[in-house]
Every structure is written in C-alpha cells, then in structure tokens.
C-alpha cells in the first residue's frame, strides 16, 4: 500500500463510517473493511478505479467531486478521507468545508509543493517541478491547485478547523529531517482535521 495510505489505515478508528473521496481502486477501503470493520463508500470518476472497486466489493459511487457533496447529509459519516485529490479540485476550500459538514473529522493528503526538490527545480532550473509525487508536465497536469504544509495550515485556520495530527508521507526517504522540517523535507502532506 502507498505510504500515506498505511499511515491513514493506522489512524482510522474501528467500526467507523467512512467516506473516501477519490477512492481510486478501493485499496484503502478494502483494507479498512477487512481490518477495521468500517462501513462506507468511495466516490470516484475514473472508470478503471470504479471497476477495480466493484470487483473487490468496495461500495463505489460514480460522482464528480467538483459537483460537491449535496447528496450527502450532515454528519452522515464519522470520517472523510481524501488522498491525493485536493489539488485536482476546482475549489479545494469549498470541498474542505463540505468534508467537515458530512463528518466531524477528515484526513487529507496532498503533494507538498514546497518540498526541497520542488524548490530546487523551480528556484535553480527555473522550471515547473516534476517528481514522483508530481509526475505530470505543467501543460497536462490535473493538479491545478498545488499547495504546501503552510498554505494548508493557513486555510484550516481561516476556516476555523483544528489540526489534530500532521504527518509526512515520504516512505523512508529523509524521514527524520522531514519530521523536523516538514514543509522543506516532506514530500506528501498528511493532515488530520476536526471542525
């Protein structure tokens, strides 16, 4: 499992009602169903991802996150998870509010644009960064709202949410430095937030 998913798996409480936004192939939800007896759904628009979910018995609903979560009632879930999808949304700020409307708590992961290699790419080479976490070119990237640890913390504070946990998803790479200076050495940002 991807390193950010392994960490999230640890954070999810037993038996929680979970909504996974942009659930991909359903790997995380399938593991949570199995190991933590959670219930819940994934939302996805990618056809391959949806088919993979159906084949492994993950409840998946074909829904475009840019259309919002109007169909989900307030507090319908205990936890909303969104991994590596915030940066592709048209309005990440509105989505964050929606997520904390349908659940008290959410877990969000996204690529940290301020990671030192990204900075080097842009600062020294003068080119838009390309990395494992951001594999696309500037012209074909779905990532239209890139941000950093600090940017996201500021958005949470403006919206009045509480950050209850923060972690870096780097795998083993630069682990200790990333713990100390996440905005410089963290490749993937992982946040746990409450309203």
């Amino acid at each position, binding site marked *: 499992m991807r390193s950010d998913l392994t960490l999230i798996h640890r954070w999810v409480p037993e038996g929680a009602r979970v909504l996974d936004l942009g659930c991909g192939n359903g790997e995380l939800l399938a593991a949570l169903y199995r190991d933590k007896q959670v219930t819940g759904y994934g939302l996805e628009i990618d056809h391959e991802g949806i088919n993979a979910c*159906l084949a492994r018995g993950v*409840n998946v609903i*074909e829904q475009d996150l840019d259309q919002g979560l109007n169909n989900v009632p307030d507090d319908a879930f205990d936890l909303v998870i969104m991994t590596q999808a915030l940066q592709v949304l048209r309005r990440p700020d509105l989505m964050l509010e929606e997520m904390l409307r349908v659940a008290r708590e959410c877990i969000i992961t996204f690529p940290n644009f301020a990671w030192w290699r990204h900075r080097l790419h842009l600062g020294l080479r003068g080119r838009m960064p390309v990395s494992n976490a951001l594999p696309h070119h500037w012209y074909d990237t779905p990532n239209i709202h890139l941000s950093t640890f600090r940017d996201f913390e500021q958005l949470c504070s403006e919206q009045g949410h509480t950050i209850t946990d923060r972690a870096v998803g780097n795998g083993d790479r630069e682990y200790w430095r990333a713990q100390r200076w996440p905005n410089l050495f963290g490749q993937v940002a992982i946040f746990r937030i409450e309203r």
Partner: protein
Amino acid sequence: MPDTSSASSVGLVTPDTAHFDTPLELACGRTLPSWELVYETYGELNAEHSNAVLVCHALSGHHHAAGYHHVDDRKPGWWDAHIGPGKAIDTRRFFVIVINNLGGCHGSTGPASVNPATGRLWGPEFPLMTVPDWVNSQAMLADRLGIERFAAVVGGSLGGMQVLQWALSYPDRIANAVVIAATPKLSAQNIAFNEVARQAIRSDPEFHDGWYAEHGVVPRHGLRLARMVGHITYLSEHAMGTKFGRDLRTDSPSFGYDVEFEVESYLRYQGDTFSTRFDANTYLLMTKALDYFDPAGAHGNDLVAAMAPVRCPFLVVSFTSDWRFAPARSWELVDALLHAGKAVSYVNIDSPHGHDAFLLPNPRYEAALGGFMQRVAHDAEVSSTASGDSR
C-alpha cells in the same frame, strides 16, 4: 443460421414449466387459484444451491434471455449479450433463472390462459399484477427449485424494479441486487406515455373491451401505435438522429402521407412486428404494473424510510442518454440507499442508445457488471466451501 455452439453462447435451450396449485394472493385483493410459470435456466446449480442468479425481465421481455430455441433461430434471447460462458453473468459460475412474469404472453398464466372458474379465456378479467405480486410468485418458484437465497437478482427497467422489490420483500433471500436503467417510481411523464399506449389499444375497434380473442381478432392497430410510442421513449434523440436523420426513402418529397422518412418506416416496422407477437391485454397489464410501482408510497413518499428492510449490497447502473428512466432517477435510489446507510455502488455508463442501452453490448457496462458479478460469484463459491467444511 446462428452459431449455437459458440463458446460464449449457452447454446440450445428449452423452457420449463412449473405448475402451482397454491393460491397466490395479489395486491389487488384477488387470488389466482392455480397458475403456471414458464422459465429457462442456464448453467448448473451447485451442490450448496448458493450460485443461483435470478434475471427479471422488462415490459415486453420474457423467459428466453439467452441462447437459441432452434438451430434456425435468427436471433438469440434478449440478454444474450450479457448472459453466457465468460460473459458478465457467467454461466460457468452461475445458475441463471429467467421467468416469464404472470400476466405475460409467452407461456406463463396470463390473459390468454383459460380461467378455470369460467372455462373462458381470462382476457380482460385477468387480475392486474403488481411488481410485489411478481416477486412473490418468483419466490415460490425459487422454493420449488430449492433456492433459499439468490446470489444476485438482476434486472433492467421494469426488471430493475423487481430487483428492488426483492430486496424489500425478501431481504434474507437476496445476497446482491443489480438494478439497471430503472427508477424507484414512474414520473407523471412516464405514466402519460403509458396512458397514450393504453388508449391506442383500448380505442382500437378490434379490442372489444379486451375480448378480442373471442371475436377471433387482434387489436393490431392499437398495439402497433402503442409500440411506436413506446419505442420513441426507448431511443435517444441522438440515436434516432444518427440512425435515421431526416433521410427520405424516396428521392424527393411526395407531399403525401405514405412512409417517406426512414424513421417512419422504422417505427412502422417495429409496430408491425410487435403487434403480431404480443398480447394486447398483457401490454395493458404490464404498463399498469409499471405505473403502480412505488415502494415509497407506503412510507409517506419517504424513499429512505422505504429502504429500511434492505440487507444486501446494490449495484445501480444508469445510461447517460436514457431519458425514459434518466440517470437522475437512478440517483434517487442511490441517494435513498446512501441516506439509509445501505451498501450501494453506482455507475453511469456513457451510451448514445437511450433506454435501450441496457440491452446492448458496451465495454464499460460489461466491465462494471462483470466485475461486480465476479465478486458475487467469488462470495457464493466461498460460502459454498464454508458450508461444505462445516458438514
């Protein structure tokens, strides 16, 4: 001549008939004292009886969903694209049952059967059937076949409504529900189209208040119009446009009322063939069953409350260009299941073919349905192994 021995076909099939002397109590308050169901099966029922799949048919469908009756049949059954070895509903793993619904005109007891009380054909006196009535009769056949619980119940359009009813009426007897191109209830517009179809039949002078058989005639004209109206709602505007456009059958307009546009010719052909193979009283009855279906009705129109009995996972499928039961109608069901905290998956398949898309091949449709059904088959096989171990 079709290739009846093709590896992906169930090949030649023969329908079976089950006779019941147990009275069937109906929603309309009447009772069918004795009745028959005609059905087909494909594949093998496993020793634990855990791999049975019930496929429910739509308005003009019947029990012949896959394979061929004769080597010289021109076409296979109506859902042959999706039922067979290696297909989405894989007959190498499932035992598939398809039943002609009561009130139908393909062998099960219906208006063209003899009413034992009068010795006359039932005709217009055949009781109006509802979706719950059908589901009850299907459950009695399942009992007869030794099937306690279906691995899945699957259906499109009116068939999808039966699937939903199964999950509500018999939550312990259905392990998975697949509802395709359906709706939790008809809209006023849907009912309006049905009423035009019914009036077309009922106003045909040959209809004789439904006793046309006794007069030795068929209200062919009315049936033809009914089918033409229905057919318009099965296709999308786009599909009609690409199939026929404004093409004329002649070089120039004739300034008369004979068939000129290709689409007119097509509709007349559809109406003509239908009027020779379908019973008018059955058509009336089936459209009424559609109109009456409304599981939320008994719950103050609260569909979420109506979903309370559901215990099995649902797969809901809609098609982008379907305007008869548009994707928004599937969403109503998905939302209700989601709000009720029930397991549900939903896919909206891109197709230009309108409502008819549920009958047709489509790679994404097959992949989604096939993937879901493989998981169903896996679960059925696991449960059969588990029950085998416990013996």
